[in-house]
């Protein structure tokens, strides 16, 4: 057990805070132009943080409208058409402009080079381009909304989307297509960085698991996104040029669209969850003061999920007319992919076992992630079994299931990571108690919003309807009430994190006494990340119970 070099909190040390700030990536130049043309991975991470936050609140506004509409059985707030457009907007914006980029491009961008002791990602200009592509794509989606909206749902199923929909399908599809290039650019950057820029002494199995998770995510991004790009191209050309690949009048098969679409979109679920797993691993090991249980198993589980995730897409198509034999095969394979996920859950719990757990906000979020992800994953098994899926397909059960994974899982993980690395990113400590309250609120608000939806689905409420029989109302009211709490829990961090930028205490370089190279540099890091070469010693997660978790400092 070697000592992890950390700077003691109380002895703020050799360098005064303002010096660190001035030499940091934040202090160098502050003009808007210098930010918009930056190739510094840390600044690009911040740009992504701003844009994804913006998209999160656009998607959130749509969600609010949905929950308001569903408060009463009658379709009174929105027309049926308007409701279709609102949930499509919610899905498109949340999936492609928030969930997919949020952890890889915000935290991944900021942290991967730091964790590898590198000065930047391999292709800094490509990195900046990826941000611009993302916001241009987002702008198309928002433009389509302002021009009148899209009503196909985020899945763009044919033949509705090609032959019947009269809304701005092409415009939205173009936006998603462009954002796909942004995803690919990020993926290329991450993989090449991990392959070619690891420092001497950091072998593959000494990389932090967050880097591994970004690596596995990037693999999925690169191998799945091109197929989405192609299927959207086919959709657009069918609408605009009449090159009908999916047109039944020509013998085309609309189900083929679903095959190609889910070849991307099922793995995309893992694009949206693997980075969260990486974050949660880092957080749990730190606040349990225990090294990660089964490091190698964690790595293999990540890679197994990434690979097997490509073999299961047909579980979205059990009711589509797909062959029964294919359905059974896909069902079996979907059960297989649950195994590595279960290994991860087991290892997180084993990591916490007999640890010296402290309940900082990021730890609360991370523990919430483990519970909610487990629940979302287990209900996924219900949906993966053909007979049960025939009952539950296209009901609120499905909605609840993927929100447990995406929102309960990924958004919790993002907040865990944001709080964990906030001192490193900004050089400020956030107010701990406020953050703990927000974390707990989010957990309870989330469950109140989405647990009733499992029941709704099971008793027969289909998704994508703006009016429903009175019998369902009580569950919808519970769900909408939960959404209010959830909204408050999402707004709180916005306020106290911004507050901490100005009034927060200065963060030492390693407030959590965490291991990992990113904690060996100043908070916030200097422009080129490290003033002296970081030391790589001991194993990756060198936590020791004797190292007290942290300070009694920032609790005001």
């Amino acid at each position, binding site marked *: 057990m070697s000592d992890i070099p950390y700077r003691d909190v109380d002895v703020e040390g050799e360098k005064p805070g303002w010096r660190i700030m001035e030499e940091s990536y934040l202090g160098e130049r502050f003009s808007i132009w210098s930010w918009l043309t930056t190739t510094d991975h840390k600044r690009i991470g911040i740009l992504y943080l701003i844009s994804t936050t913006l998209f999160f609140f656009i998607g959130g506004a749509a969600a609010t409208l949905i929950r308001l509409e569903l408060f009463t059985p009658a379709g009174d707030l929105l027309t049926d058409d308007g409701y279709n457009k609102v949930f499509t907007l919610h899905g498109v914006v949340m999936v492609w402009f928030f969930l997919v980029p949020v952890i890889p491009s915000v935290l991944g961008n900021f942290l991967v080079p730091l964790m590898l002791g*590198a*000065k*930047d*990602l*391999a*292709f*800094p200009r*490509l990195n900046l381009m990826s941000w611009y592509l993302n916001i241009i794509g987002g702008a198309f989606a928002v433009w389509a909304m302002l021009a009148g909206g899209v009503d196909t749902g985020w899945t763009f199923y044919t033949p509705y989307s090609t032959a019947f929909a009269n809304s701005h399908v092409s415009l939205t599809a173009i936006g998603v297509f462009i954002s796909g290039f942004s995803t*690919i650019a990020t*993926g*290329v*950057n991450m*993989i*090449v*960085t991990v*392959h*070619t*820029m690891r420092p001497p002494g950091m072998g593959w199995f000494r990389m932090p698991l967050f880097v591994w998770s970004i690596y596995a995510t990037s693999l999925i991004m*690169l*191998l*799945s*996104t*091109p*197929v989405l*790009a*192609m*299927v959207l*191209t*086919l959709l657009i*050309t*069918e609408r605009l*040029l*009449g*090159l*009908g*690949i999916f*047109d039944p*009048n*020509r*013998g*085309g*098969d609309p189900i*083929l669209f679903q*095959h*190609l679409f889910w070849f991307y979109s099922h793995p995309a679920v893992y694009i949206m969850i693997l980075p969260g797993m990486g974050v949660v691993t880092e957080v749990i090991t730190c606040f349990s003061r225990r090294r990660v249980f089964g490091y190698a198993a964690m790595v293999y589980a990540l890679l197994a999920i990434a690979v097997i995730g490509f073999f299961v897409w047909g579980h979205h198509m059990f009711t589509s007319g797909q062959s029964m034999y294919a359905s059974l095969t896909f069902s079996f394979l979907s059960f297989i992919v649950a195994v590595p996920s279960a290994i991860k859950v087991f290892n997180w719990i084993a990591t916490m076992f007999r640890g010296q757990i402290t309940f900082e906000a990021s730890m609360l979020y991370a523990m919430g992630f483990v519970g909610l992800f487990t629940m979302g994953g287990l209900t996924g098994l219900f949906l993966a079994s053909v007979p049960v899926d025939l009952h539950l397909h296209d009901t609120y059960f499905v909605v609840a299931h993927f929100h447990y994974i995406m929102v309960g899982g990924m958004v919790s993980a993002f907040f865990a990571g944001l709080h964990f690395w906030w001192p490193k990113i900004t050089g400020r400590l956030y107010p701990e108690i406020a953050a703990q309250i927000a974390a707990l609120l989010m957990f309870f608000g989330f469950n109140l919003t989405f647990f009733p939806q499992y029941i709704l689905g099971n008793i027969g409420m289909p998704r994508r309807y703006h009016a429903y029989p009175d019998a369902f109302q009580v569950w919808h009211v519970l769900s909408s009430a939960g959404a209010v709490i959830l909204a408050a829990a999402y707004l709180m961090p916005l306020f106290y994190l911004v507050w901490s930028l100005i009034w927060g205490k200065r963060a030492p370089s390693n407030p959590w006494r965490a291991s990992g190279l990113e904690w060996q540099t100043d908070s916030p890091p200097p422009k*080129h990340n490290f003033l002296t070469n970081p030391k790589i010693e001991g194993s990756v997660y060198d936590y020791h119970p004797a190292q007290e978790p942290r300070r009694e400092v920032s609790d005001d």
Partner: protein
Amino acid sequence: MTDVEAATIGRTRGGTAASSPALASHFHDLRQQHAAADLGLWIFLATEILFFGGLFAAYLVYAVLYPDGFLEAAAETEVVIGTINTALLLTSGLSAALAVKAAGNDMRRSVMLLIAVTIGLGVVFLGAKGYEYWLDFGHHLYPTSPDFPLAAPPAKLFWSLYWMMTGLHAIHILVGLGTWGVILFQAWRRSFSLTDNSRVRIAGLYWGFVDLMWLFIWPLLYLMGRAT
């Protein structure tokens, strides 16, 4: 003194290539930088394979579902032009590969000549393609045409795929030509070091991929349905 000369002198005087102006500040040395650039492009090409792969999957499904309709529809493509274009692309693949080799040996004149040849062959390819499109239009071989000559419904699927495949491939050729054009101009201006910079190698890899895709498009669209 140009970059090329500076880099060369730097190396021959016993200094390492680390002092090359082509080296970006976040890399340790040129070897790392070259490895990153090459790997990045290979990964990009893997994504390109899957991008075209979506189209090939559609082709596979429909060719299996409607073998007769596809054989009949494929017999209508311009096989002579398609085959000439195959020859043109293979030749340009040779000149591009040699250009990469020449760049590795710092042979500027040779690089410029070979790139020019590659561009020339690519332009002829596009010209032939344009002529072919013109003929196709004349024969009403586009799916929205009211006078589409083939009766079987799947024929329109084939011709949709034809336009998509050749069109996307032509766009890739255009991008490749643009890249070669920029590099040719820069080589002429001596604005980058041929050996220290990955530019020519990267463009060569991309061009090789464009070649590669055509090698599959050609049998699927042109050689299909000829044995009658």
